[in-house]
């Protein structure tokens, strides 16, 4: 007996065959999960046709029971699996359609989240601090209202020096304490003296902060500005150490390919003294308007601490030597970021602040 014969002849088997064809058509025709559910209920629901067929098997004669039962169960297994697969496919399609309907304009601006910026001057001071901390320096501070002694005298500035005049230095009214030697520090160098008075060598410090000069504001002058001072005192410190230290700094600050040069200069509180130039950040040394055609930009004043200064703080000049340097933060900011006017740094215009 072939299976064809059994199927073809037997009414039970024929019904199974019909049901399968119908189910295949219903599955293929179901366009949505809802259609598919309807088909499932029709076939496998409580009153479904396959359910009814399965329930009818028990009433068949024993010889048919096995064959029809087996085929009906096979059909059921197939159908459940097919429903599952088709359902999965339909759900995927439906989800996809749903998601496509949730279209947004992705070019709309992102949600506003608060954002603020550090001031460029603070950012540069931090950058400088970090470079020197990496070289073993600590950060020192000192008062902005200073005494003549710390700002001038102990820094070996002669008492008749023109920078002490009322045209160059802001003096603070301290008449209540009966003094005339109170001023706004004209550089951060007095911190050197204060640090040396309070500590014994070896010492490696930098001192960032505000300084003041009696200048009418213009594009390159501001009565208030920021400096970073540096001081190293130890046994056996050399002029070569000063060179090496500042070269390292200049390359970290302005770029590894910068050339650095040291020109002899004069400052009252260092000897020998130097001005330090880096190759122009704009033209790279070819010469341009910013570097006045020289290819160099002056960024630092430096030198070996003058023995007279050590004398004021009671350091043994035979045992210790040291170097000191100072730089203008605004100048570095202006050079590095091409800012044409120092006053822009203190306007606090949000459109300026947000750029850095």
């Amino acid at each position, binding site marked *: 007996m072939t299976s064809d014969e059994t199927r073809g002849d037997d009414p039970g088997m024929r019904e199974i065959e019909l049901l399968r064809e119908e189910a295949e058509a219903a599955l293929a025709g179901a366009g949505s999960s809802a259609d598919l559910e309807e088909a499932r209920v029709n076939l496998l629901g409580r009153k479904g046709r396959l359910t009814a067929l399965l329930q009818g098997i028990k009433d068949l004669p024993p010889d048919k029971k096995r064959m029809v039962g087996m085929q009906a169960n096979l059909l059921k297994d197939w159908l459940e699996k097919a429903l599952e697969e088709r359902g999965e496919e339909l759900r995927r399609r439906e989800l996809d359609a749903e998601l496509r309907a949730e279209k947004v304009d992705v070019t709309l601006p992102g949600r506003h989240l608060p954002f603020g910026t550090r001031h460029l001057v603070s950012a540069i001071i*931090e950058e400088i601090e970090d470079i020197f901390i990496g070289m073993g320096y600590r950060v020192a501070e000192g008062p902005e209202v200073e005494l003549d002694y710390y700002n001038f005298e102990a820094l070996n500035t002669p008492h008749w020096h023109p920078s002490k005049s009322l045209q160059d230095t802001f003096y603070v009214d*301290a008449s209540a304490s009966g003094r005339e030697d109170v001023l706004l520090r004209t550089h951060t160098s007095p911190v050197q003296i204060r640090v040396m008075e309070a500590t014994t060598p070896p010492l490696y410090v930098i001192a960032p902060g505000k300084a003041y000069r009696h200048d009418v504001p213009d594009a390159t002058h501001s009565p208030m500005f920021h400096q970073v001072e540096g001081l190293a005192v130890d046994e056996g410190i050399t002029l070569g150490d000063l060179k090496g230290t500042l070269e390292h700094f200049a390359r970290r600050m302005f770029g590894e390919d910068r050339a650095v040069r040291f020109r002899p200069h004069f400052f009252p509180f260092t000897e020998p003294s130097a001005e330090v130039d880096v190759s122009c950040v704009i033209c790279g040394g070819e010469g341009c308007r910013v570097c006045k055609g020289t290819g160099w930009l002056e960024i630092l004043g430096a030198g070996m601490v003058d023995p007279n200064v050590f004398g004021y703080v009671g350091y043994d000049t035979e045992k210790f030597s040291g170097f000191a340097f100072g730089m203008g933060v605004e100048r570095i900011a202006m050079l590095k970021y091409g800012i044409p006017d120092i006053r822009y740094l203190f306007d606090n215009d949000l459109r300026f602040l947000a750029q850095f």
Partner: protein
Amino acid sequence: MRVSLEWLKDYVDIDLDPQELAERLTMAGTAVEGVERLGGGLEGLLVGRVLEVRPHPDADRLSVCKVDFGGQGVEIVCGAPNVRPGMLAPVAPPGVRLPDGSAIGEVTIRGVSSHGMLLSERELGISDEAAGIMELEGDLEPGASLARALEIEDTVLVLEITPNRPDCLCMLGIAREVSALTGAPLRKPSFVLREIDPPAAEDVLVEILDPDLCSRYCARLIEGLTIGASPWWMRRRLRAAGVRPINNVVDITNYVMLELGQPLHAFDYELVTDGHIIVRRASAGERMVTLDGVERALSTDELLICDPKGPVALAGVMGGEHTEINAGTTRVLLESAHFDPANIMRTSRTLGLSSEASYRFERGVDPSGCARAADRAAFLMDELAGGKVRRGVVDARAREISSSRLTLRVERAARFIGIPLREQDARAILESLELKVKESRCGEQGTVLEVEVPTFRPDLEREIDLVEEIARIYGYDRVPSTLPSSAHKVGMLTPGQKCRREAARVLAGLGLSEAVTVSFISERWLDRLDPSRAVFPEDPVRLRNPLSEDGAVLRPSLLPGLLEALRFNVNRRLSDVSLFEMGRAFLPLAGEAQPREPLLVACAMTGNWVPKQWDGAAQPVDFFTVKGVLERLAAALHVPGLTLVREELPFLHPSQSCRVRVGEASAGYLGLLHPRVCDEVDLPRNTAVMEIEFAPLEEAREEPYYREVPRHPALHMDLAVVVGEEVDAEELEEAIREAGGELLYEVRLFDLYRGEQLGEGKKSLAFNLVFCAMDRTLTDEEARKYFDRIVKALGAGFGARLRA
């Protein structure tokens, strides 16, 4: 200092091109600020000889000249009064351009054609002289190039001389530097002075009454002079140096000053009473008229050169008008003196009067150079002005200033600079600068050189000064770069410094931008914010010499600066502004010279905290925005003990004004800016501010310590209670925490509601409570027990009832 290379080459041979020389000088401490080329624009101009001069047939003031400039003579019409046959003059042939760019063509002037132009110095662009055509001197060929004939092509180095190097304020000093740098020998000017009898001392007397201010005064007497113009070469060199030629005698004094560095002054001898020079301090109220025609009132601080009748010069600064050299001068009393630098600086500053002479004296002139400079000038007056030099220098010496001796330890210098240095290297460098090594010995500390320092180097006073010279001439660029080798270096920030950095980062992260404002403010700000000075000091720290009244007070608070910055932005239509600043304020301390300088952090916010967005409303700044900022800051810095206490401050909205406390101490304030202040300074009403001092904040920081995180499920319960308006949220929260005990893990206020059904003067506050235990899962019953306890406590404490 302007240095003509053509001139400089009189004293030292120079093989380098100007740029290379500039570079070498710069790298040895004499910074070259500019390199100027002179004599441009004379291309095509020629030397001409005037052959004939006849009057113009049709114009009285003009003449028609036949001029030879390399060919047969051509006719040129000329208006200059000084034109005469035989003279040599610059001529511009047709088709050439003058230095000012104008072109010369063939023109017809009143019927006579002119084939070129005879030129004045002004037309050549070399001086302001325009009264006549320039007369050329010497044996010049008509038709020769004018530029070559005038030797006008020159390069000028513009040098920045540092204040410690007065010796470099002259040609010879610069030549000495060049010689030291290149090894080319230095050639000092040499000359043989002819003198006539009787000796000058018979007609000149010098007395120094104030020897502290004048160590030496040399005078010479020169007779038979004819005042006139200096020769062209001298005028050219003076101009290249930036000095205006005047007449031969005055030019010679300036020329020698530029050459040797010694300022000189020439008096008309006939106008100096009795030829008697008295050097003395001015008496109080004494007056004199200086060369510039200004009458000056003097004090006893000023040094004068006088004759028996009164002042003839302001010593070292400027001569007197009365004894000035004039066209009729034939006898000159020449002054070459040494004055005290500090006194000259003082005088120059007090009187607001400076000159080439005072500039040099205040930096320090070689006290040994007086006589030599007087001789040199006398020689030139003989050569160039027909002078006869009377025998001898009348030399009044009040004090002897002699050369000094220094020792240099060679090995120590080498170590200090960080270079290998042999004795002969050190010696060579010192000697190239005319320092004499008198002796060399070997001591405990190695080789020691005894060095004699000439008087023209007053800056060399100590061993270190010699070390600097060695380093400078050796070349900083040849010193190897090293790093300090010490092991005693630990780079770090203090906890306080770290905390400040953290604070700035937190504030920026919260959307505030950092501002930096100027430390001096107008006192008006304090009057505006705090008229009765309840908060700010009554007597703030003031400047004695402010730039203006707007910046006469050192800020006792960062607030004025920040409000200015807000206004700056608001005025530019940037309406949403949130700024912070960290900086020092200045508070007077009774009896102290220096004020207290607390480090403050301040915030000022206005407009919207979150701006209106495409799908959301704006969130305007209010009291709670700035309070939120403070709470975030305190949390980030781990400052748990920070509280706000109601207190009315004069510049804050009276009901939204708080004192910020750390523990029991005040650390600052926070609130909404008083509407009165907002209106006065043109800021929107919703401007919120806070300002706190950093030190108490830093002190109150607590290192975070692990607090157990619940591992068992927590129970979340909401509690909404109705209380009277007078009850503070904070009080309720504290009562909840207390009653909730340790099972209450967290309390958060999430709703505030007012409405009719609650009744007049009532509000509802809703809290989310989180209960949990660390060792077990809490049951509802347990949590409910505590919840009920809380409700009871709130009822008893505040009359709170549960909201239905």
